[in-house]
Every structure is written in structure tokens, then in C-alpha cells.
């Protein structure tokens, strides 16, 4: 037990309990043996720490006692502040913070109001692109004319003269009896209108409802060759759609039907127009008038325009506008909207297969 004796010696030395002779011997030993010296230093340090902890504890105890005395004498008030006093206390404590917060709020609200008013003035109806395909006018129209001439010259039995379109857009059936919803801007100033299905069959149509404010138009197929579709696969809800709903559309930006997918990004449209939605989807001129359909097969809106400066910002007329329109024309036209969506629960490919028969290209000149 060498270490025990050594520690004992260190402690006795520290407490000054050694005789002069022992002390001399111990100091000599430390000088000659660095290991022992190291141990002595370490142990002394350790014991000092231990004592300091104890001193600190008893001093803290004194502090607490003194504090108690002073609290009892009422010199120190430890009472919790209550009621009105607390309110005043908190106010005086936080009034600087409150003042700063109020200033920031004021600045933010004023500057926001300024910015909003500046932008809403300048942006009025400047950045909207109607999604009608007028390019047809330039090239396709001419080609078609040439083609028509050739057709009429060569075809033995032309079923119908081909229609020389100046524009094309999209529309979809809202009643199997031949009522088609599209945009008002599509049929604007058109003398003649035809609708064409995906097989290429064309039917003459006339507008029965045009509302430039909501940008909604309803066409009626007057052609006798049109075969009624007994049950439309989708339904048209009157209720508002939910933010973030996944939606898709079918349209005719080209001669072929094109599928597009996106989501509902806002419940209001351009400049806060509550009659339309903002959706995020990739569309091109020609998609105008296409149905916006959710996963349950409900047509929640009709694509109408997109913002020129921003990609994927598209606006769609809410489906409840169709109901309003029907209300206005019910005296002259009896239109029955589909009640239930037969495609609910189908996978997307099958949904599209059923829907594409009901989506038409709307052409006019």
C-alpha cells in the first residue's frame, strides 16, 4: 500500500501536521522523484478543489439565509406582480419592443398598399394571352385553302367541304345532346363555327350563350349528322374545388388531342377574379375552352387564359359559371348537365379514353 502511505503523507504535509524532520524528508523525496512530486501537486490541487466546493456551498447557504432575512424584513420584494400592476410592469418592460413592432407593421402595410396599388393599376388586363390559335390564319389557313381546292378537285365523293378556319380552340360537351362549353373570346366575331372530334368529323355549331365578362360561351351543334352521346363520362360540380387538387386537361393546341397535367394553385384568378381559378399547367394557344378535370372526373373549370410574363400561370373559369349560364338561357334551351362522373376511380389512361370523345376542336372564321 505504497500509494496509501504517500497520499497520507501528502495530506499531512498539506495540513502541516508533520514534524520538522518528516517535512524535510518529504520535501527531499519530492525533489528527487518527479513522479512523487507530480502526484503531490495533483493531489493538492484535487483537495483544494474539494475544499473550494465545500466553501462555495456554505457561502451560498449564507447568501440564501441573508436573502431570506431581507425578504422577511420586506426589503426585498419577491411577490409576484399581479393584475394591473403586472400590466403596467409588462408595458414598461416591453414598450420599446412594442413601439418597434408597431413601426415595422406600419411601414410594411403602407409599402405593401403602395406596391399593390401600383401594380394593379399598371397590370390591368395587359398580360393575358388568350389561348386561341390564330397562327392558323397565317399559314395553315392558306395550306388548308390549297388543300381544299385539291380535295374538291380530286375527291370523288367529298362528304363535306373542308372548313377554312382562322382560329382553333377547344370545347367540350356539357350535354350529350350537343351542347359544348368553350370560351367567349374563342368565338368572338366568328361568322361560322364548326366543332371537330378526334376522328376529324366536323359539325356546324352556333353560339347559344356568350358572356364576355365571364369569358364563357355555349355552342349548340346544329348538324344533323351529330350522334347524341347518351351519358357523359364526367360530371360538372357547382361547388368550389380545393387548393392543391391535381387536375388535367385535354385540348387541341395542334391537330391532335393533347393531354396536360397540373394542380390548382389559387382559388381566384387574374387580379383576384373570384369567378376563376389559377392553375399551374402547361398549355399553349389552342387549349382555350378545354375542360379542367380533377381525379374524380369532375370538370371544375374551363381553361381561358395564361399570364404572358409567367410560365405555368393559367386561369380557368370556375364550373359554377356554367350553372349561371344555364339559368340565364333556360327559357330558350333545355340543357341537362351530367350528374355523376362515370370515370371516377378509373386510372388516368382509361379516364382519358372516355373523355376524349367529348372534347372537340372549335374552329371558326
Amino acid at each position, binding site marked *: 500500500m505504497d500509494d496509501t502511505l504517500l497520499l497520507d503523507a501528502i495530506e499531512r504535509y498539506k495540513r502541516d501536521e508533520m514534524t520538522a524532520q518528516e517535512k524535510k524528508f518529504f520535501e527531499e523525496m519530492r525533489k528527487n522523484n518527479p513522479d512523487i512530486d507530480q502526484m503531490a501537486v495533483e493531489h493538492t490541487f*484535487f483537495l483544494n478543489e474539494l475544499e*473550494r466546493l465545500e*466553501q462555495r456551498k*456554505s457561502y451560498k447557504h*449564507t447568501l440564501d439565509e441573508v436573502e431570506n432575512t431581507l425578504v422577511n424584513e420586506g426589503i426585498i420584494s419577491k411577490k409576484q406582480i399581479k393584475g394591473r400592476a403586472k400590466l403596467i410592469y409588462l408595458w414598461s418592460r416591453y414598450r420599446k419592443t412594442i413601439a418597434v413592432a408597431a413601426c415595422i407593421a406600419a411601414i410594411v402595410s403602407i409599402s405593401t398598399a403602395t406596391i399593390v396599388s401600383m401594380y394593379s393599376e399598371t397590370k390591368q388586363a395587359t398580360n393575358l394571352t388568350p389561348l386561341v390559335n390564330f397562327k392558323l390564319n397565317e399559314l395553315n389557313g392558306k395550306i388548308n385553302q390549297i388543300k381544299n381546292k385539291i380535295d374538291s378537285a380530286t375527291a370523288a365523293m367529298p362528304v363535306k367541304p373542308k372548313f377554312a378556319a382562322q382560329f382553333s380552340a377547344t370545347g367540350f360537351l356539357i350535354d350529350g345532346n350537343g351542347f359544348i362549353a368553350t370560351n367567349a373570346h374563342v368565338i368572338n366575331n366568328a361568322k361560322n363555327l364548326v366543332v371537330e372530334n378526334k376522328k376529324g368529323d366536323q359539325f356546324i355549331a352556333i353560339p347559344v350563350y356568350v358572356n364576355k365578362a365571364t369569358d364563357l360561351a355555349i355552342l349548340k351543334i346544329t348538324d344533323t349528322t351529330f350522334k347524341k352521346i347518351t351519358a357523359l363520362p364526367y360530371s360538372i360540380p357547382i361547388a368550389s374545388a380545393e387548393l392543391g387538387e391535381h387536375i388535367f386537361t385535354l385540348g387541341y393546341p395542334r391537330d391532335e388531342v393533347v393531354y396536360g397535367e397540373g394542380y390548382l394553385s389559387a382559388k381566384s384568378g387574374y387580379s383576384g377574379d373570384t369567378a376563376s381559378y389559377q392553375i399551374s399547367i402547361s398549355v399553349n394557344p389552342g387549349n382555350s375552352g378545354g375542360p379542367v378535370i380533377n381525379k374524380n372526373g369532375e370538370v371544375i373549370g374551363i381553361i381561358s387564359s395564361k399570364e404572358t410574363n409567367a410560365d405555368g400561370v393559367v386561369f380557368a373559369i370556375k364550373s359554377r359559371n356554367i350553372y349561371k349560364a344555364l339559368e340565364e338561357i333556360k327559357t330558350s334551351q333545355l340543357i341537362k348537365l351530367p350528374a355523376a362522373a362515370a370515370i371516377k376511380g378509373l386510372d388516368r389512361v382509361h379516364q382519358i379514353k372516355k373523355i376524349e370523345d367529348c372534347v372537340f376542336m372549335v374552329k371558326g372564321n
Partner: protein
Amino acid sequence: MNILEQEKVLLQGLAANDKKAVEAIYRENYLTIQSFIVKNNGYPDDARDIFQEAMIVLYEKVSTGSFELTCQIKTYLYSVCRRLWLKRLQQMQRYNPSAESVDEIVPVEEELDVHEKRNADLILMENALNKIGEPCKSLLEAYYLQKKSMPEIAKFFGYTNSDNAKTQKYKCLVRLKKIFFAQYKNGV
């Protein structure tokens, strides 16, 4: 006696953990500190913590014996409290620049760094003591802190003789030192 001499007596009392001296200093200074802290985003409870911490700093300073009084106690305490409180505010991210006052203060940053290091060391020791468990802790405290004799300890803890108690004490001491120095060297 002038003020400086009076304060010297007070500090000597403080170093000896004399309750009267502590009380006199407490009485003299507490309310000033409390009003400073309450004015600067604090509660009365914060004032108590900060003031006691400052009293400990002062105690450590005088109990080492090397303390020369270069300013009045109230200036010293105010400086320490102010520094401690601003630091606390910064930690809570509620720093209040209005605390940059024109009151008389003395620089205390370095002393507070030393104080913090000491605090950390003492916490290490306390943790080590708590880790060795009973009866080791009480045994060591009885011997080293309460300075009881070995026969007394043997009787109190129920050892057959003082040699047995000594062996036990030695074992406990080795364990405590091992734990303490392991943490201490890690920390340094």
C-alpha cells in the same frame, strides 16, 4: 474610519464567510442591482440570480487573499452584475443596447472568464462526487470537509476499526479522483 477602511473590514468578513458582513453588503447593494435588471428586460428573480452570482465572484476574489480594493464594493458589484446580465440577455437574444449606460463601471471581463472556468471546475467536482455514490460520498465529505477523525468516522459508518475505515476512504478517494481527472483532462 473612512469608507475604504469600512469596506476593507466588510471584505475581510466576506472572505471568512461572516454572515454579518454578507448581510451588510447585500442590504447596501441589492436594490440598485434589481432596479437595473428590471429596467433592462429582467424579472426580479433574474436580479436575485445575477446578484448572488456577483456576490460569489466577489467572494472568490477576496478569499484568494490577493484582492486589492481598487474601487468601492458597489461599483464592483454593479460592474459584475451589468456584465453578467448583458451576457445573459445576449444568450437569450434579447440584447438591449440601452444598457450601455453612463454609470461608473470597472472592467471585469477577465475576472469573469476566470470565474466561469472555476465554476466549470466545481461543477466537475460536484458531478464526480455525485457519481461515486453512497457511502463513499459521505465518507469522503466527513473526512476531508468536516475534518472528522478516523475513529469517529469508523463509529459513524459502522466499520469495525479505524484501519478499515481508512482503507474504505482510500478506495473511495481513488475512484473520485479517477472520475474527476478523467473529466477534467477531457475538458481542458
